[in-house]
């Protein structure tokens, strides 16, 4: 790890340790915005660290951002840090400063999200809705990526021109539907994204944020499960002394290790290219790890891990949510399979060994 990255990770570590405790997670699930946590994040500047320095950010690499999100995932941070980071990157791409305050990110290019921009008299308005938008209700501004007239656009909306329909994922994190009822689009707030930054790339980067967050939550699962197995006494000894439990925890360790490697390698690929393929690969592999690892962690914890009181579900429920965001295993595997089948059997080995 580079020195700069190590420093970022340390900053994130001490920040989340101080401001993202269990009480914060519980309050957030009742619908309360974790104001202190977000204020600390803004104070540190992590939320727009992916924006270039000339646009008020820190100009960190995408791999660096993933290292920060790994820590956020380990602490189950109930804020849209990933979305703010991505919005900072996209705003820099179009030579803008990211808007102030919490930002919601919308990818309004999915078939099942009816969203369009249209001319109404002299002005442009947005119509339709976009679903499952992380933490939309708490955003001061919304950065929306949409396709119109064969181009991809970045449009910034102030929160007061949209209507929010609240909903949450299975971890209790806000995933709202944002409605646009002839929402006005300021001419200056609509910018065309350059060729090469399309919805596929945005989605791939977004998927990588989930890879990083899952990798972090998986690290938590392993350490908490091992700790529990060392402390919990049954049949007169810690259950971690039983081979049946040891073998299970070794399986968990394997999945966590695979996620760690996939996350690190995909982050590196994202620093050097579009990494659309690598993001699908990592999303597929880490998503699968999330399923197996949560099964083992819960099994090792027994009944106490199934209670609301225990902390385990703060990570396991997020793993179950994040694995389906920006491409489930099935969807991600299909992307990978189609790419390699199209390239053909003779190209498989050469494609796999494009190491840097």
């Amino acid at each position: 790890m580079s020195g700069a990255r190590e420093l970022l990770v340390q900053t994130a570590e001490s920040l989340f340790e101080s401001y993202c405790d269990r009480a914060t997670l519980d309050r957030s699930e009742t619908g309360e915005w974790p104001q202190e946590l977000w204020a600390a994040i803004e104070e540190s500047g992590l939320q727009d660290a992916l924006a270039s320095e000339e646009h008020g950010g820190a100009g960190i690499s995408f791999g660096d951002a993933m290292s920060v999100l790994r820590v956020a995932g380990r602490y189950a941070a109930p804020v849209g840090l990933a979305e703010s980071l991505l919005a900072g990157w996209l705003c820099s791409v179009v030579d803008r400063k990211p808007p102030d305050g919490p930002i919601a990110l919308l990818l309004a290019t999915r078939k099942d999200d009816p969203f369009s921009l249209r001319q109404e008299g002299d002005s442009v308005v947005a119509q339709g809705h976009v679903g499952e938008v992380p933490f939309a209700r708490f955003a001061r501004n919304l950065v929306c990526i949409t396709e119109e007239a064969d181009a991809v656009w970045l449009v910034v909306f102030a929160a007061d021109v949209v209507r929010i329909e609240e909903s949450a994922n299975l971890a209790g994190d806000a995933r709202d539907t944002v409605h646009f009822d002839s929402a006005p689009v300021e001419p200056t707030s609509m910018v065309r994204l350059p060729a090469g930054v399309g919805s596929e790339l945005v989605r791939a980067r977004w998927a990588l944020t989930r890879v990083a967050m899952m990798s972090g939550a998986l690290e938590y699962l392993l350490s908490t499960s091992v700790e529990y197995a060392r402390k919990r006494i049954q049949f007169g000894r810690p259950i971690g002394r039983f081979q049946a439990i040891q073998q299970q925890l070794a399986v968990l360790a394997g999945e966590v290790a695979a996620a760690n490697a996939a996350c690190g390698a995909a982050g590196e690929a994202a620093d050097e290219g579009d990494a659309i393929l690598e993001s699908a690969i990592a999303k597929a592999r880490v998503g699968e790890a999330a399923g197996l690892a949560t099964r083992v962690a819960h099994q090792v914890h027994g009944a106490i891990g199934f209670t609301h009181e225990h902390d385990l579900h703060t990570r396991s429920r997020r793993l179950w949510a994040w694995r389906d965001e920006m491409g489930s295993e099935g969807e991600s595997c299909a992307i990978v399979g189609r790419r390699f089948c199209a390239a053909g059997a003779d190209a498989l080995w050469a494609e796999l060994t494009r190491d840097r």
Partner: protein
Amino acid sequence: MSTNLNFPPVRVGPEVQSFRLEVREFLAQEKAAGTWEGEGQSWGGYSPATSRALGKRGWIGLTWPTEYGGGGRSYLERYVYTEEILAAGAPAGAHWVADRQSGPLFLRFGTDEQKAKYLPPIIRGESYFSIGMSEPDSGSDLASIRSRAERCSGGWKLTGTKIWTSGAHRNHYMIALCRNEPAGAERHAGMSQFLVDLQSDGLDIKPIRNLAGKDGFNEVVMDGVFVPDDRVIGQIGNGWQQVTSELAYERAGPERFLTNFHLLVALLDVVGSEPSPGVAREVGRAIAHLWTLRKMSISVAGMLSEGVLPNTEGSLVKDLGTHFQQELPDIARRVLESIPRSEKRKAFRELLDQGILSAPAYTIQGGTTEILRGIIARGLGLR
């Protein structure tokens, strides 16, 4: 004792990548020239001609010091070389064990005379080794071995039975782990490693047929086999420590997930360029696993380059890798159901059948799943 499992990405660099292409090119030429026939042999295939050809290129003993004729190159170069052999299916089994673990064992524990005598023929691709660890009553519980070494004039006499000894019927040497003292309170003490010439008097080598109908491994009965003092490897009584370091080399390499790579290539070929969504998912999942395993194994090669012997990490790679290899034939079976009958499909089915028959060994040889997971659990601080 840590739950902090890090597999940092490793940059192989342009030089290593160009070495990869050099190996790939050479293997393609050799195959075209008919040095070997057939698919997917790699470390299961025996071809002295191929071994000598690889030795001539200087690719055996790639990481060993140049003073003994080694390549003096990095573990990353050895990693890409090994991968290319596996991907090409080149029959490199004759010298595989010598290259992977016997040579490194001499380098770590051997005398200068032993290094000078035994390493050069290995490097030339002419000297082949077998592993003499398992016994009929000692599999996973290696410390329970009963083969004994008794002191005699000028050396030792070995008596006992080794089993699952791959290649013993045609290799030159076996490195036998024997008890020089009866098992005492400290069960890992009193064992030593001996270099046994497989032509010695008192040896009886009997082939064991495997379930695929092949004669690959053997039972080796030693009845007072004489081993002179200069063929003791390392210290008398230090066998256990030596053998565990040998096993660490054995575990982490790409042969733990690329042994049946040819099956994946053939699968892609038979499904064609426009697979159904279901088939694309199956193929994509296999590739996502393989891609991740490669990243993990390269990361372990990077650790070896830095002088770390990554015991837990190596065991993790072998555990995940061998299970991937074992699952691959099942993935192929599921995919095959949706492919219309053709000559190509028929040929693939034959390959697949061989793959199914080979699969049970993956999670047993070189340390069973259960032993590996025990090592991982120890790494986690659970034992």
